[in-house]
């Protein structure tokens, strides 16, 4: 981030941008036109967006941009997620879901003669289905504003898994505790194709202000 941009983008601007993008968090950008400065920031084309390949998630540290055209299905996101958060390695309990989408993914996936792999990530809902469904209020907001599972309270009932429309939380069969994405960024950091990318809010704000 250059100093120039930093000077122009203040704390309030950042907050504003984030509030704007929260409105469409987890939704595909299909149907929208996106200015050149923003496209280059997201590393995608308008055609990617038109085809529904690009989805954004508002996270505390920036805008998570997911581009399925770039995903090569290596599962490093899932492996890194569990290595960092669980100290073990697994695809099933990973907080983002790629491997279950490799072969059959709606009308796409290998078996539909398609090489689409989609790394599905937690929407970080403003009004979270998982948290609302938890009978023991084990899903709480941490000091970064992220909903996390309080393992001391979690009874592993799976209500959160069922309630989440995308079934993103997972009850770990070994610990009997649920886990969900805590926005740690390990998946993004280790993505070898940049299919997952977190763009800092400053940069998003600067690009947005260029347009306005």
């Amino acid at each position, binding site marked *: 981030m250059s100093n120039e941009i930093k000077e122009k983008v203040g704390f309030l601007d950042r907050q504003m941008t984030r509030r704007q993008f929260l409105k469409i968090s987890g939704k595909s950008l299909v149907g929208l036109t996106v200015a050149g400065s923003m496209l280059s920031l997201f590393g*995608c*084309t308008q*055609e*990617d*967006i*038109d*085809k529904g*390949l*690009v989805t954004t998630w508002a996270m505390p540290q920036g805008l998570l941009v997911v*581009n*399925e*055209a*770039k995903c*090569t*299905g*290596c*599962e*490093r996101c899932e*492996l*890194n997620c*569990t*290595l*960092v958060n*669980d*100290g*073990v*390695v*697994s*695809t*099933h*309990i990973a907080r983002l879901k790629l*491997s*279950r*989408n*490799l*072969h*059959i*993914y709606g009308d796409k*996936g*290998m*078996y539909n*003669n*398609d*090489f*689409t*792999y989609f790394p599905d990530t937690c929407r970080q809902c403003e009004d979270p289905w998982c948290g609302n469904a938890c009978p023991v209020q084990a899903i709480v907001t941490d000091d970064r504003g992220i909903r996390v599972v309080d393992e001391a309270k979690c009874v592993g009932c799976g209500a959160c898994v069922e309630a989440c429309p995308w079934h993103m939380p997972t009850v770990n*069969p*070994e610990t009997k505790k649920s886990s969900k994405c805590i926005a740690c960024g390990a998946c993004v*950091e*280790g*993505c*070898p*194709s*940049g299919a997952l*990318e977190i763009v800092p809010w400053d940069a998003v704000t600067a690009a947005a202000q260029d347009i306005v």
Partner: protein
Amino acid sequence: MATYGWAGTILRIDLTTGEITKESSEKYQKYIGGMGIGYRIIYEDVPLNTHPFDEAAEIVAAVGPLTGSSVPCSGRMNFSFLSPFSRGNSIVDAHMGGHLGSRFKFAGYDAVVVRGKASKPVYIRINDDEVAIEDASHIWGKGTFDSNRILTEELGRDYQTASIGPAGENLVNYSTINTSVGNSGGGGIGAVMGSKNLKAFAVRGTGSVKIADPLKVKELNEYMLTELIGGNNNHNVPAVPQSWAEYSAVGGKNRWSGAPGRAWLKAEGGPIDAGEQPHYDMNKIAYRCNKGVFDFGEVSLNYTIKVGGCSSCPIRCYTQYDMDPLADYDLPTHVSNTCVPVIYGTKYYTNGIKDFKYKGDASVIINGANARAMDDLGVWCNYSNLNRDFNWLVTSGKIHEVIPKEEVDSLPWEWEKNGDPRWVVEILRRVAYKEGELGIGLGLGTYEMVKRWNLGKEFYDREDPNNQNITYNGYPKHHANEDTGQVGLLFNLMYNRDCMTHHLVNVTGSGAPYEVSKATMEGFFGPGCYDKKKAFTPMNRNKAKLAKWAFNGKQFHDSATLCNWMWPMTQSPSKERNYVGDLELEAKFMSAVTGKNYTQADVEFDSERISHLLRGMTAISFYDNLGETNLRLTHDAIPDWIFDGEADFEAFEEGATKMDRDDMNLALDMFYEELGWDKETGIPTRATLEKFDLGDLADDLEKRGILPR
């Protein structure tokens, strides 16, 4: 019980009785996993004179402590079984990438041992603790793509599957097991599964691989991914100049082929350019390998959607295509492959091939048809011996001697002449269904084919681009003397199929300047070990040590499991490291994952145990099945063309790849000495076997009178 690294359990399934049992894998952990566990279990369970298709024969599907551990390039798995196709019918492996291997671990198993024969077609379903032998009659007869799809649709998309095709069902020696993405294992595994009426494996694992020191593993992963890993085959310089790199592979033939201006042109949403991929940038590694450009040149980009590969591997060596011209022939257009199925398909066309849509795309499209058909039918090519044997049969005119005239005339030769992609599909179909003398003969594999058609010893000895046989046992060389002189030739002789050892071709083919690679290699293995390309020097002791390192190291990779196309980390793309890799990274990962303290010497010692097991089992098979008592003179015999080819050159002249007979005899002497094998017979001594806790193997050799005195 699960331990760090290992899942802790071996699953045993008897398809005759339906009995399913579990036992601890602990006593096998000194064999590491994968190939090592497979060899030991088969050695203990199966008399080596058992026919590979007999009920008593076993398949050991196994993974190792590093499989699914997040260590980069740890997605492969191994099947061990008795070879149906090569001379002596001894122990071999099928090695397969993809996503299935790690699922065995997540489900809780280091190995699955299958014996017996089901009374009707079945598949093995593993869902964590729940293991079942399921009816497969609805998928029997189907191609692998349909079988895998149907199983996944029925069982749910959390399952990973691998299936045999018609070739395996029909007991064709040249047969594979395949995943949905083009990963396959060969060596005749398809027929061995077919002989058991076993169509497929379907595995779902919700558990985890336990890691002793997760922080250390993460740190080592990042170290490897920023400082050590290169492109495919771990080539450490890019094929095309990049601004951060001092060197590039001038010839352009190198597998770090992603470059600015090279884009996946059929990507969803428009072209994705590979750009530059500085070695320190972890988020661009997937753009380094573009196997399509390596195989066919930039014309392949017109059909490229993206790249793919195995679980955990950032080097995406599979190119994934939509080859739309194939639709005009009612053939599937989606192709995903990396290996020989997508390279030598053009060998079936003796009159050449014609372009389809773009200049130079003929080879792309024909190979796409070949790869897709091979994978669907589950046909194996024996590292393209199938393609070469077919080409030879037609171009030599021999086809008219060994195949009945009506059958020759029944082939759609018009398709061959016109470069029609259906031609190769038709040949492969005949092989998969054992149709006619051609289908039967080719599908038996080179060794049995030579016997059936009385082609004689001269078939192996002739100098001909179609002859790549490196022994008289029925398999070709896989990076041998043409790459590293005596060193490469030595480890090519050791197995019962093509060796698939890439330790050295990864260095020689890297494209780095000779002096740079030489400094690295001599730093590790001493002076004189590493010759200039096609400018070999006579044998010396350090070359023997280098060959032994590569031979043992391959066993480690198929046991751990790590991909031998990427590992070991011999060179580095980093100028700051003087391009020197880190050979001890294997031990560092083994320690961090398993919590046991491994030095690199420990890793090599355990790997060498597997080398001796391979060699002892081979000696027993050759004695029991052929009555032979000397591996040096039989199993390790080298065909004449290696010494007598290249008439314009003398051995050791600049430009020559041929070898010298006396020098090669010296090479074998030194290599056997380094391994502690008898120089006369090439069989391990009792002292050597006991040093590696293989006293029982020494006893077995002694019983047969073939233990060296």
